[in-house]
């Protein structure tokens, strides 16, 4: 198949410059740059004549070429005349040249480093501000809840409990069991060298009870339930459901946030206790199969070495984690803008914020327990 190359010929004629369109113009053949035409125009020209006499087939690539020519000629205050240009081309050009009533200038994104820094600082400042007022509203709503004045639906609440609790069991089982086994493996390699393999029980027990089970459960819940909360509330924002609630005089804090937080605060400690058992079971499996430790030895060692205090610290942490996970999910969800992209962003930031807050809370508790010597 031979390709006709889209082309034109041009020549100057006094103050007039003529462009003859030749052959077929389409996207497959490419479009010559409109500005390359202007490079050929001699100085002193004040009129362009575009002739379509020898034009073959054409598509919008021709129109785009002519539009560029036309706009450039207008900038130079030249006259443009079209001769024997197909009617369709003329109409499309006219349509493209019809200027809308007003052009609202688009807000320019920041360019320089300083602009960017300022812009981002304002954004962060707003988020922090919003977060503080969120905590305030949440506290006020909790107050109404404890006085029994909060408006929410019990059905929703039980559904949320079901989702946060029983439905999370499979993944909590898997992760905790594996974490327990990993801890036991790592410990076993070191402790076996000293013939102290029985102390694997202490290691696994203490680590799970005090730290790992509450933290791993919290991270699972941030990814699973926190993200779900953000997506739910975000899409409710998109559908104007939140506005709908507000106009009915129902506070989204009471109706949506409180039940979610309550569900997590109730379920997370239970999941943490369960994760403890699973982690210790994982440790036991490794100890019994790899090190010559018997089931009763392991349990005896565990019970003797891990005091109730450590479990309690783990449980207290899990309650705090539940609060931060629910808060970050609901906060980002309610703050979401009204588009599908925004809901996605809200979900992402719910998980990120949730995990950051979990680790920060954990550090604060560790510092506090160290100072208090517990």
């Amino acid at each position, binding site marked *: 198949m031979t390709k006709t190359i889209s082309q034109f010929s041009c020549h100057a004629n006094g103050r007039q410059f003529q462009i003859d369109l030749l052959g077929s113009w389409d996207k497959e053949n490419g479009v010559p740059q409109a500005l390359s035409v202007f490079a050929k125009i001699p100085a002193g020209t004040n009129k362009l004549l575009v002739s379509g006499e020898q034009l073959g087939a054409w598509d919008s690539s021709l129109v785009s070429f002519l539009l560029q020519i036309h706009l450039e000629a207008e900038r130079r205050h030249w006259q443009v005349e079209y001769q024997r240009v197909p009617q369709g081309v003329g109409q499309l050009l006219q349509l493209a040249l019809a200027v809308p009533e007003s052009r609202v200038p688009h807000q320019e994104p920041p360019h320089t480093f300083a602009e960017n820094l300022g812009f981002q600082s304002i954004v962060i400042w707003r988020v922090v501000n919003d977060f503080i007022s969120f905590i305030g509203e949440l506290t006020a709503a909790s107050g109404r809840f404890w006085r029994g004045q909060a408006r929410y639906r019990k059905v929703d609440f039980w559904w949320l409990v079901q989702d946060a609790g029983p439905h999370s069991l499979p993944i909590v089982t898997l992760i905790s069991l594996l974490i327990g086994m990993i801890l036991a493996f790592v410990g076993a390699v070191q402790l076996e060298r000293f013939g102290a393999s029985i102390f694997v029980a202490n290691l696994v027990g203490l680590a799970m009870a005090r730290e790992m089970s509450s933290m791993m459960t919290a991270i699972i819940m941030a990814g699973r339930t926190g993200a779900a909360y953000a997506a739910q509330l975000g899409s409710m924002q998109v559908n104007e459901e939140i506005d709908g609630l507000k106009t*009915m005089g129902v506070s989204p804090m009471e109706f949506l946030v409180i039940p979610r937080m309550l569900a997590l605060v109730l379920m997370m400690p239970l999941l943490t206790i369960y994760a403890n058992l699973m982690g210790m079971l994982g440790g036991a499996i490794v100890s019994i199969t790899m090190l010559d430790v018997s089931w009763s030895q392991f349990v005896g060692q565990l019970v003797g070495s891990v005091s109730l205090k450590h479990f309690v610290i783990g449980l207290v942490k899990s309650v705090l984690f539940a609060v931060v996970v629910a808060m970050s999910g609901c906060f980002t969800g309610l703050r979401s803008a009204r588009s599908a992209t925004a809901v996605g962003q809200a979900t992402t930031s719910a998980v990120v914020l949730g995990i950051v807050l979990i680790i920060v809370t954990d550090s604060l508790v560790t510092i506090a327990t160290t100072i208090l010597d517990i």
Partner: protein
Amino acid sequence: MPTSKRRKAKIQVRDLTMRYGDKLIQQNLNFDILERDVFIIMGGSGCGKSTLLKHLIGLYMPAKGQILLDRQDIWTVPPSQREALLRHFGVTYQAGALISSMTLAENIAMPLEMYTQLSTGEIADLVELKLSLVGLAGFQEYYPSEISGGMLKRASLARAIALDPDVLFFDEPSAGLDPISSRRLDDLILQLNESLCATIVVVTHELASIFAIGNNAIFLDAKSKTMIANGHPRDLLDNSTDQRVQRFLRRQASE
């Protein structure tokens, strides 16, 4: 529409300025919505019609100016009283705004459960009545995602009239509806206006609806950022000398 008796102003807007952050939406808005009016807020896309509606229903706080309901400023009364004031309003949103995790019956029952002492049976009867008023009897157990767009708007209307409000707001009722459904919704609006004696405020740019139902209107302009006309839509069509209003009402593209 008979307007023999002198009607009282239901909602008064005084010197209202609306902003989104730093962005000015509309300013210097002054108008009255009379009792039993079918009041149209019209204007081109993006001029701030829906934003004005959200200010009227107390969802957004005015940057400046007052919104008075029965001569009470909805933003200066204490919050508890404000909630009671806002209960005079029923709102039908553009997208329906029904809670997606609840059935139609549960959605409509919610305001009744919250604000009345009615028994479950009485509430169920009321829900049935409201649904039949909007032509959706028998759809109690459907979820919002299971019904069509037109039905969704009518269901949303059923929720809006659950508490027999004095003022009903509609945000773009005919958006996304076919001409027949849209016409049916207009008829429904007029019937509710007459039978419930409700004041009705409609945000729309559907010319057919504007002339069919409106008896008072304001025209918001996106460019000058204020209202440029106020009156009966037919009067505006016949007498307004403003080119922008004429072009809009006669559906003419700008020259």
